[in-house]
Structures are given as structure tokens and as C-alpha cells.
């Protein structure tokens, strides 16, 4: 809490990062003509309160000493901004809860843990039933058919135990949803190829490790902000490397193959993209323009176009719009970028008519049932065959169509598990986004706001392109359905994305170390 030394007015500090300035949209509004519009940022970090001068005209003084961009503030220190002096004081109740809870989470930890346990249990049962159905349909009850579900469940339970008992996490909702989706994918893949399903389980495991590492890494914002430039350079070099030594598969050159390993670098660049896009409030205020981020985005999207991966380019573009809006709130920039993009796409369509050809079947797939609409018509036919309850795992025929377990996996869900489960899965995707929106409301930094919203926005756009592309509501672009689709890089990267949402949830760190 701040106390105005002159008037005695008490100003509550609501957020973890507070902008101070004359602007009406500042968190702490100063009606003082000597104060700049965006004067300074007062923020809470592990070491305590920090004030940052965000290029103000007259500077910020702590105990009448002009600060050098950044200074730690202690209790009863006096901060002078313009001609206003503010004293940092203790809040009446306790220091730790400056923030009023918007959403009350369950306080009862044991009840929560039992809930997670039973949910995990339910998910394992669900996956096992899928495997049983598969075994019956194949009339094969050898150990091989059970291996994928056993390995998968083993990894997920280890993950559960590690999170709850070693890391002492009180929140596990996100992970549970992701495990549920990943498992469905693994069993679908095992219908066609056991080997692929093992690779998918391996990717799932690596994804979890990346998730745990990134959640730890993002925990310290200074570290993140320091690493940003390295991540940027890393991402760009990865894309350049991809363009240089990439291999073409299914029409796009987005693979790097090293020995037995084939990686899709663009999947990992998604993570870097969010790292670069998101930022803490003090950095947002000092670097107002988006130039650097726009240049980085242009490089990424341009590289994807060169690779011929239009689906991913589209995902990047939407995420770019989302991040730019979150950062600047500048509708004009967004409209400008959009018009540039529309113009650009027209140019592409004009000079490369074969690109337009790919979309000519859109909303007319039945007229092209054996050419451009082949995959979509199969998805629709087999989806409808499944009815509301599905034909059961292993009984579907969509799996014989090319890319059934990645681009067309939504059709497989409809056919084998039914429309109801398919809708539930879609609702889970939307639910993850809603969750990130809700938790980021209580987030500790604008970095978490932006990164969580960008990550969930990206997941939503990707799900939309996958689901609506395969069901002919949008043109088919061939992107994966997060967590479910076959694809190692995609699986690992999606878990990485999830960590941004996880990090935005204040409970992730709050109760772990008990520092706040």
C-alpha cells in the first residue's frame, strides 16, 4: 500500500506489476502534471518490491535519491514521482495477500488431491477400455496390444506422483486434461502401428519433462527476460537451418532428419515465439513499439511460407495478432497488419495459383470426393457413421485413409468414440483456453498474462484449423490436433505450450516454496 505523504491518501496496490503515471489507464493514476504518462512500474519480485523508471522525463526518486532505472524499495521508503511523494507501507492484514481473490479456489488440499486421484483413475479406466475394445475388434489379446496403454498409464501416474508428492503442486487440472487427450491419441496410433505408438509415448514423456523444466524456468522472470535474446537467435537459426537442410514431406519442407530422428523445428519455434512475444510490464512500457517483435514474426512466418507449411504459418499469424493486441492494444496496428496479410495472400494466390487450387474444394468437397476433397469427405462419412456413441476403438475405417491419426484425427474420434466424446474433446480445448484466461487474471506479471493467453490462443487456433479443416468448415491445411495427433515434435511442443498456462496460475509457485 502506498501513502501519499502530502494528502495522506492511501493507495492500495492491487497487482503484482503496477504502472504509475498520468494516463487514465495506469494502475496507479497520478493527477500531477509533472508526472509522465507512463512514469514508472512498481513490481513485486522474489527479493521484494522493485521500482523501475520507464523513461520518465523527471525520473524517479527513492528517499530523495534519483534512481538508475531500477531500485529495490523497502518498507517505509519514500518514492517521489514528479512532485508527489509516496510512502510504501504495510497493508493492514498481511503482506502476502495484496490481491483480492477473484476466484476462490478450494482451500481443502486433501479433498483436492482425492479429486485429482479419482480423475486420474477415471482416465486410466477410459484408456484401458479403449484398449479392450481395440483388442476385441482385432481379436488379439496378446501382451503387445496392451503395451501402449500400460506404458502410457505408467508414465502419467509417475508424472502425477512426482507433481503432487515431490513438487507438492496443488493444481493438476491442466495436466489431467492433457493426459486424457494424449492417451486417446496414443491408442488410436496403436491401432495402426505399435512402433508409432511407442514413439508417441516417448514424445509424451519428453513433453512432460519439457513441461516440468519450462514451468521451473519461467518461474523466474528476470531469468526469462535475460534469456529472451538467446531464444530469439536460437529460433531464427533453427528456422534457417530448416530451410537449408530441411527435407520435404507431404508437400512441405518442415522436417530435419538426423539419423533415426526426424524433427519438425517449426513446432519448437512456436514456444520461442511466445517467449519473445510476452514481456514484463516495465519492458512493455520502455519499448513501446512492436518493431522487434514484428520483425521476428515476419521472419518466422516468411520461413514457414518458404517451407510451404501454410497451416503453421496461419497459426503463427493469429498468435502474432493476439500477442500484438495484448501488448499494445492498438487496433490500428492490428488492422494494418491484417490488411497487409490479406494483400500478401492475394499476391501469393495470384503468383502461385497452385496454392489457390488447394482451397478450391473448400465447401464443395463432395464434388471433389476422389481428388481434393478425398480426406474431408472420408472424415464426414465416417464421422456420421459413428453416430453419437461411436463404433468402438478399432472398428473404424477412417484409419485406412492417409493422415488419419494426425490431420484427420477428429474424424477418428467421431467415428470410434462418437460425437459426444468428440464434442467433449473440443470443449476441453476451449476449457484449457478459458482456464488460462481465468488464472492469468491473477497472474504475477504481464509476461504471464501474455504468454498464457498466447499459448492458449495458439492451441485454440490450431484445434480450429485441425477440426474445422478436416470437417470442411475451413480449408484443409493439415495441422495437428494438440495432444491427440500423431507427431513427436508436436506432442513435445504442445506440452511446452502448456507450461505457459501452468506458470500463469499463481498457485503453481505460491504454495511450492511458500515464499509469498
Amino acid at each position: 500500500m502506498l501513502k501519499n505523504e502530502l494528502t495522506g491518501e492511501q493507495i492500495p496496490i492491487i497487482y503484482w506489476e503496477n504502472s504509475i503515471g498520468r494516463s487514465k489507464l495506469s494502475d496507479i493514476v497520478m493527477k500531477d502534471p509533472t508526472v509522465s504518462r507512463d512514469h514508472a512500474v512498481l513490481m513485486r519480485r522474489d527479493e521484494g518490491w522493485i521500482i523501475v523508471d520507464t523513461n520518465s522525463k523527471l525520473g524517479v526518486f527513492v528517499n530523495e535519491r534519483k534512481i538508475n532505472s531500477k531500485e529495490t524499495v523497502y518498507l517505509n521508503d519514500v518514492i517521489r514521482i514528479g512532485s508527489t511523494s509516496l510512502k510504501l507501507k504495510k497493508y493492514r492484514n498481511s503482506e502476502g495477500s495484496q490481491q483480492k481473490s477473484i476466484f476462490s479456489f478450494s482451500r481443502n488440499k486433501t479433498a483436492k488431491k482425492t479429486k485429482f486421484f479419482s480423475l486420474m483413475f477415471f482416465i486410466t479406466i477410459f484408456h484401458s477400455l479403449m484398449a479392450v475394445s481395440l483388442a476385441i475388434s482385432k481379436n488379439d489379446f496378446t501382451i503387445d496390444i496392451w503395451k501402449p496403454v500400460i506404458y502410457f498409464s505408467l508414465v502419467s501416474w509417475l508424472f502425477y506422483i512426482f507433481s503432487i508428492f515431490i513438487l507438492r503442486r496443488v493444481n493438476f487440472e491442466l495436466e489431467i486434461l492433457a493426459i486424457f487427450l494424449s492417451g486417446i491419441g496414443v491408442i488410436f496410433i496403436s491401432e495402426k502401428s505399435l512402433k508409432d505408438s511407442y514413439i508417441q509415448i516417448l514424445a509424451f514423456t519428453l513433453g512432460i519433462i519439457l513441461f516440468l523444466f519450462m514451468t521451473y524456468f519461467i518461474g523466474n522472470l528476470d531469468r526469462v527476460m535475460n534469456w529472451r535474446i538467446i531464444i530469439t537467435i536460437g529460433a531464427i537459426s533453427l528456422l534457417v537451418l530448416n530451410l537449408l537442410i530441411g527435407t520435404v514431406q507431404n508437400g512441405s519442407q518442415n522436417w530435419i532428419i538426423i539419423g533415426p530422428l526426424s524433427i519438425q523445428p517449426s513446432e519448437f519455434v512456436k514456444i520461442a515465439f511466445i517467449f519473445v512475444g510476452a514481456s514484463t510490464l516495465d519492458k512493455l512500457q520502455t519499448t513501446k513499439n512492436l518493431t522487434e517483435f514484428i520483425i521476428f514474426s515476419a521472419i518466422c512466418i516468411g520461413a514457414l511460407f518458404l517451407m510451404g507449411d501454410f497451416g503453421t504459418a496461419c497459426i503463427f499469424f493469429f498468435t502474432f495478432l493476439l500477442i500484438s493486441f495484448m501488448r499494445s492494444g492498438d487496433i490500428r496496428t492490428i488492422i494494418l497488419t491484417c490488411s497487409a496479410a490479406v494483400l500478401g495472400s492475394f499476391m501469393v494466390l495470384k503468383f502461385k495459383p497452385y496454392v489457390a487450387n488447394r482451397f478450391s474444394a473448400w465447401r464443395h468437397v463432395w464434388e471433389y470426393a476422389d481428388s481434393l476433397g478425398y480426406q474431408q469427405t472420408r472424415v464426414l462419412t465416417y464421422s456420421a457413421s459413428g453416430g453419437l456413441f461411436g463404433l468402438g476403438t478399432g472398428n473404424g475405417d477412417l484409419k485406412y485413409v492417409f493422415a488419419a491419426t494426425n490431420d484427420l484425427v477428429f474424424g477418428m474420434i467421431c467415428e470410434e468414440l462418437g460425437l459426444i466424446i468428440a464434442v467433449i474433446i473440443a470443449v476441453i480445448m476451449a476449457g484449457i483456453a478459458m482456464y488460462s484466461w481465468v488464472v492469468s487474471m491473477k497472474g504475477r506479471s504481464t509476461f504471464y498474462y501474455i504468454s498464457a493467453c498466447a499459448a492458449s490462443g495458439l492451441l485454440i487456433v490450431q484445434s480450429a484449423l485441425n477440426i474445422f479443416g478436416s470437417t470442411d468448415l475451413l480449408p484443409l491445411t493439415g495441422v495437428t490436433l494438440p495432444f491427440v495427433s500423431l507427431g513427436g515434435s508436436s506432442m513435445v511442443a504442445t506440452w511446452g505450450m502448456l507450461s505457459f498456462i501452468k506458470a500463469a496460475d499463481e498457485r503453481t509457485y505460491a504454495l511450492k516454496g511458500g515464499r509469498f
Partner: protein
Amino acid sequence: MKKTRMRSMVVYIMSISFLIGIAFFVFEFTLKGKFWAMNNINTHLSGNDMSKAGKILDRNNNILAQSVDKKRKYSEDKDIRIALLHTIGDNSINISTSIQNNFRAELFGYNIISGLGLSNIINTANDIKLTLNSELCKEASSGLGNRKGAVVVYNYDTGEIICIVSKPSYDPYHKPDSNKINLDEYEGVYINRALSSSYTPGSIFKIITATASLESNENAEQISYTCNGVMDLNGEKVTCLAHHGDIKLKDAMAKSCNIYFAKLALELGRERMESQAEKMGFNSNFDINGINLKNSFYDVSKASDCDFAWSGVGQYNDLVNPVHMMMIMGAIARGGTYIKPYLIENMVSEAMGIKVNYSRIVAEPQIMTSECAEELRNIMSYTAKSQYGSLFKGLDVCAKTGTAEVGDDKKPHGWIVGFSKNRNLPLAFSVIVENAGYGFSTAGVIASDVMQKANKIM
């Protein structure tokens, strides 16, 4: 931080839009799911061989199609298979108006709730019983022989179609290969000509012109015109096959005098002709159990006087659909209203114990007054007795033949339309034989044979 927090609403909006998209997919799923699932690309339907579909029966429970040992079997009688190809369909979806195509979902037991899931466990397939008499269809088919055309017969009191045949046809067991199917012999073989074709009517259209006259004049029967075999209209000619001299409606119809009906049409005027034709169902769409008919066409808005005069005798750009003409016959027989024809008696799902009746007697609105219908019955009865004496022996049939000129040095289409006045044999018929010559000697003979057979077996 407040600002950024407000802006994160975008994610909320995105999620909602995504869910709206999902809702739209579910909406399309419920609306079009049947079409999606029943498509031929669906390998759950075992590709093209329809190995799981239900039976199709005729009115006497003769099996017309069934699935035995994962194979689709059709009637054992080759002639019946050929006669009913267009109604039943084959294993392909080329014949779009066939029962196997339009009622695929019912035959396979598909429904939106269980998809095709339930049909794997229990037999949800429906058996479809038709109103057809397959023996009568066989008779009609052999009557047409190798000529192209169509025969339709229905019970004008109940609406049951008892015979519907279209030629050319083929045996579904021995479908001609693709280079043969392009030959003239098989021209339009996938089209059910009774449902999906419309032809120049020729003299049978005189019934419509006569109706227009009867509906607008008190003493239409007394109106007399002079036929000199030819009539000159602004340099263009309307011709007649004979010199009929002074002639009135009844004889003009019996002798099929072109000049009389051309003059009658000119006298009535375009407006009255068009409104009468439209009242009788020209330019409107009809369907049989949801299968659309090609509409009959009458439009003289752009016709010259001579064209208009010719339109009154069924030439110019007039077009009629065989089933539609049969419906008009039903209306004349019944006194001004016809019963909507249908093809499906019922659908039975034995395993589910569900029987759905489709037979429904639906009377359509009056298309002519009952007085007018009575006059037409008399005129057509006179026509049949005086002119077609050798046909329909022992039957009380009213009829009108037509010989439609189709130009291009092709032989004319032969038509006959009519009905039995005897209420114990309440049948109306319509027969067209393409490029065959006079209606009397071509279509007339087929109609007569079919009606005789119907009289014997019904």
C-alpha cells in the same frame, strides 16, 4: 497491468467462437449426417455391394432385392430385374431416383443416434414394401421392348403406383461396361424417364386446352370451328392431318383436329391458357415419396401467334412429365381432384419391431370442376370407343393418344394417356414411346396390354 488484463478478453472471445464453430459442426452433423454416412465411399456399407441392406418387396411380397451371404440379390426373374432397374436401383448410385439410393439410410438401418454402430450388433435394417405389381411391370417392360420410353399406372382412388417402367434398362447382374453405356442404345439409361423426363406432349395436350375451354364457356361443346387442313397466321402455318370441315369439341378431340384446338387456344387467349395449365400443375414441382419429378412446362409469354396456336395442340415448347399426365388423368376420373401417387407401402424393421406405414391417401386441391371432369370423361370415352376400338377390349377405358413431333427428321414420340372408368379397376395410365411413330399403334398397344393384364391379375 489493468490494460493487459482487459485485453486478455480476446482469448475468451476466441474460445467462444471456437465453440460456436463446434456447434455449427454438430448442427451440420444432425442435418446432413444421413447423406454423409450413406455415401458410396463409406466402406462400412461394404463398398458397393450393399451386403447389409434390408429387403425390397412388391405389393404381393415378392422379393425384388435382398442381401444374402454378403451379396445383393435381385429378383430371380431377369425380366423383372430389367423392368424394375430404375425403381429399385442397382449396387451403384448412378440411378439417383431409385429406392436403393433415396432410402439407403433406411435400408441400412442408419440413424443419427447410433450411426451404423447398432447395425453391427442387431439388424436395424428396414425392409421396404412397394406398391408395385412386379408382374405388371414385366408386362409393360416387354411391351416397350427395345424402344425407349416409360409406362406408369396407378390406382387413382388410393394413390398406389402399381407399375412404373423406364427404358432403356439393363440387368443389374450384367451391367453393360462403360464404353457400351455411352452408345445411343443406352442413352440416358440411368434416368427413370417416368420421373425425371419431360416430353413434347403433342395431341394429349388437347385435353388441357379442352379443359380451359370447358372451364370458361357455358356451352363449350357447341363451339364450332372450320378445319380446312391448314390455317395461315401472319405467314406462318398451323396444319392438320385432314380436312375436318365444321367440327365441334367432341369430334375434334376424337379425330384430333389440330385446327380446332389451335383456333380454340387463340380464342381463349394466352392468359387463360397459362392459368389453366398452371392450375393443373404445369410449372410446379411434385414428388413421389420425396423423389422429385421433372416438372411439366407451359409458357407462351414469348410465343408468336402461330407458336401460341401450336402450343394449344401440344407443340411449340410444351413439355409434360409422364407421371404428371397420369395424375391429371386421375383427376378427370375422380371428378376434379387427384390422389397424390406414392410408391412405398410401408417400412418394417423386424429386429426393432417397428413398422412405419407410408400409404396415405392425400387428395390434392381441385384442378377442374367436377362438371368439367364429367364432360372430359364423356369426350375421352367417346374418343376411345370411336377411334381406338381395337384397344382395351372389354374394358371401360377413356383415353387420348398423341403423336408429338420432335423435329430434326426424327420420328415422332407416341403417347397415350387415360384411365378406366370402371370403379372396380380404378387405374389411370400414361405411356410414352420415344421416336416410335403414331401414339395409337405404339403407346396405345402397350397401354392396352398392360390394362388387360391388370384387369386379369387384380
